[in-house]
């Protein structure tokens, strides 16, 4: 039963992944990727990683929804109705992908994998919680500033008019009488 279920999710994940680059519209590609991710999440749950599997599924479904919004925003059209083929170097990319897959597959079957060591905890999710709040807390402490830096960098890049646009590169744009003078298309405040 486990094998059949795993086979089903494996085929779904791979077929979804292939469909992403085969279907002729971005909206369909997004849904295909979402299907692939859900199948991978299910396989991760089958590997007894309940917590990681579930957050993979939840995260990826939200991510695909955001991706669809970005596509509509950037393409300026309904992506579901507009067939497209925007690719380059298809042949060389395909050859490289096949070579990488064959190399990985050979390695998978040639490597003498070691025997299993250690035994899983009774409650794996709780053991993960204990680890990241205890012995492995440094990992989470390192990820936190990385995620915070990502938020700051994302905002700085995506902000259309930041303080440097308004006050100059050295933030010292002034009027003749020495007051700060932002360069705005329309003055703000009362009495504009």
């Amino acid at each position, binding site marked *: 039963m486990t094998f059949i279920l795993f086979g089903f999710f494996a085929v779904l994940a791979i077929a979804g*992944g292939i469909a992403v680059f085969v279907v002729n519209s971005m909206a369909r590609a997004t849904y295909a990727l979402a299907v692939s991710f859900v199948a*991978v999440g299910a396989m991760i749950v089958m590997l007894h990683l309940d917590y990681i599997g579930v957050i993979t599924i939840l995260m990826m479904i939200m991510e695909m929804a955001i991706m669809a919004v970005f596509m509509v925003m*950037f393409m300026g059209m309904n992506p579901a109705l507009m067939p497209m083929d925007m690719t380059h*170097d298809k042949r060389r990319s395909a050859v490289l992908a096949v070579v990488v897959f064959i190399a990985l597959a050979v390695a998978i079957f040639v490597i003498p994998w070691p025997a299993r*060591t250690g035994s899983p905890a009774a409650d794996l999710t709780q*053991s993960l919680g204990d680890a990241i709040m205890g012995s492995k807390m440094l990992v989470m402490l390192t990820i936190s500033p990385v*995620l915070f830096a*990502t938020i700051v960098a994302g905002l700085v890049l995506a902000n259309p008019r930041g303080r440097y646009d308004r006050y100059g590169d050295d933030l010292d744009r002034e009027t003749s009488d020495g007051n700060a003078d932002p360069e705005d298309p329309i003055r703000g405040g009362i009495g504009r």
Partner: protein
Amino acid sequence: MTLQLVLLVAAALFAIGLYGALSQQVVVMVMMGIELMINGVLLAGGALWWFLAPTPDGQTVLLVVLAAMTVEMAMGFAVATVVHRSRNSDMTDSATDLAG
């Protein structure tokens, strides 16, 4: 379900993602390829954890992979927004000066 079988599926996902990341011109589609590659890594990590050493340490590594996925997506969207705003394009071919 054996270690080799799960790793083979993970390798297939990685290879498909690699094809997409190299062949697509639209930035968001390139990101989809990279997402597939990271997803393959996540699946392989999960399999190695369960079949070789099912201790909490391995789960923590998988959380790091998930965080890398999130950071990749957030920064990818931010860069795509900047490129679109400054060049009115979402194609990688019009932003080759960002390479290296």
